[in-house]
């Protein structure tokens, strides 16, 4: 009786931080279908990485995505190191974890702000992003870049964190924790926020498994999966407890990430506490050869690098499967049945990063 509403949602849409299009089909006010159109950010980075030498590629790979740039370079370097049988000095491993977990904090804060914005809670967004600046400052001070750290390299890290800065890192952790305590209740308890997240965009455990979602999205649906448990790098020294929720809705995804914020703070502190003295990188010689798969837990979930060297300084194949890529099919399962006003919240609840999805 009523005609279907068909609207393009994106690529230029204020709630979408990045261009992607969903062709939304609505019946009355229910969304009945969403077909994604991607490719707005496809650059062809994998191919370019095969044309640059494997060290230059690090800088390229950081720019797969500006949000978890460090984790990309870390995953890549770990892969190359495995291929070249390089033993990374322990100090470098711990430093990597400090940066990686700070990156996770900044990424989760960024996401939380955007989520707040997607349901129109502007001041919460502002507050969270203000908090995020604290992390950016310390990253800038330790690594030399606010979002592009550029510190990871094959064989270790390019910079050490001197003792006085280490103190500052710890101080920042305390500052952050205090700040979190201020606004986290609003994300978790506020009535208006819960109205927008509880029961919205439900992904059941079965569907989550079937669609192969990863990271907080999977964990919020009750799937126990956190690659840090697999103890790569310095995670071998720490116990990481995956944060699991059962409900699979946007609220559960928030809860998972909120707990991960505290968990990351903890990991930063632990890794500072156990920071060994010594070298922070070792020179590498030769060229990579062979095939490796390197997996790292990014803020959005597991990233997979498949690297194939041929003994020259150019790789035969640099392949990356990023978390959002894996989460997209899950997203498509969440949307139908919701209302138009829930679409942004659902999209943001998977913390989409199209840049890495399309590379």
């Amino acid at each position, binding site marked *: 009786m009523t005609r279907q509403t068909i609207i393009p949602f994106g690529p230029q849409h204020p709630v979408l931080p990045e261009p992607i299009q969903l062709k939304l089909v609505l019946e009355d006010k229910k969304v009945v279908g969403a077909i994604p159109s991607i*490719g707005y950010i496809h650059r062809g980075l994998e*191919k370019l990485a095969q044309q640059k030498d494997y060290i230059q590629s690090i800088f390229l790979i950081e720019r797969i995505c500006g949000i978890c740039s460090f984790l990309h370079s870390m995953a890549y370097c770990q892969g190359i190191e495995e*291929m070249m049988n390089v033993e990374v000095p322990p100090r470098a491993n711990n430093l990597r974890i400090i940066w990686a977990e700070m990156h996770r904090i900044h990424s989760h804060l960024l996401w939380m702000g955007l989520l707040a914005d997607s349901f129109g809670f502007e001041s919460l967004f502002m507050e969270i992003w203000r908090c995020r600046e604290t992390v950016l400052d310390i990253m800038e001070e330790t690594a030399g870049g606010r979002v592009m750290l550029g510190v990871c390299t094959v064989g270790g890290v390019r910079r050490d964190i001197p003792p006085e800065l280490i103190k500052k890192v710890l101080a920042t952790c305390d500052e952050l924790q205090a700040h979190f305590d201020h606004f986290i209740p609003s994300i978790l308890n506020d009535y208006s926020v819960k109205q927008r997240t509880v029961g919205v965009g439900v992904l059941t455990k079965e569907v989550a*498994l079937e669609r192969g979602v990863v990271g907080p999205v999977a964990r919020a649906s009750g799937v126990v999966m956190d690659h840090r*448990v*697999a103890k790569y790098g310095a995670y071998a020294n720490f116990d990481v407890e995956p944060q699991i929720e059962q409900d699979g809705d946007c609220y559960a995804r928030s809860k998972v990430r909120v707990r991960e914020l505290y968990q990351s703070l903890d990991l930063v502190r632990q890794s500072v506490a156990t920071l060994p003295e010594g070298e922070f990188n070792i020179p590498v010689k030769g060229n990579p050869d062979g095939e490796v798969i390197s997996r790292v837990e990014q803020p959005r979930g597991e990233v997979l690098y*498949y690297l194939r060297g041929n003994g020259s300084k150019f790789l035969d194949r640099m392949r990356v499967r990023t978390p959002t*890529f*894996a989460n997209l*099919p899950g997203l498509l399962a969440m949307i139908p049945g919701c209302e138009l006003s829930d679409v942004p919240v659902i999209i943001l609840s998977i913390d989409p990063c199209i840049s890495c999805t399309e590379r």
Partner: protein
Amino acid sequence: MITNIIPVTLDTLLSKVGEIFLQKYRLITISCTDLGEYIDVLYHFDKNYEITNLRLRLERGQEVPSISSIYFSAVIVENEIQDLFGVPVKGLVLDYGGKMMLAEASPKAPQANCPAAAPAE
């Protein structure tokens, strides 16, 4: 280095994937490499942080069957392979027809190493 690689052929691919599916593996992704004389396709599956790979050797011009009816999540990556390597994928549940990642004006099959792989205009 990658250890557990199970070679499959075009004929055994689907049945093997089906088997793996029943063992509750999760599909991580599919990696495709154009090695010049042939195309190497690796299917990565995960269970409890352990990876199992299926390796498929694809001759030029061969069509690969889609596993998207078994693993829906393969849809995007298979479309991507179709776009970027010019490998036709048969039986996709949602077929973008080579226009998912690439626009009309983009270079065709840009990641294929052999120009012959690019579909004729």
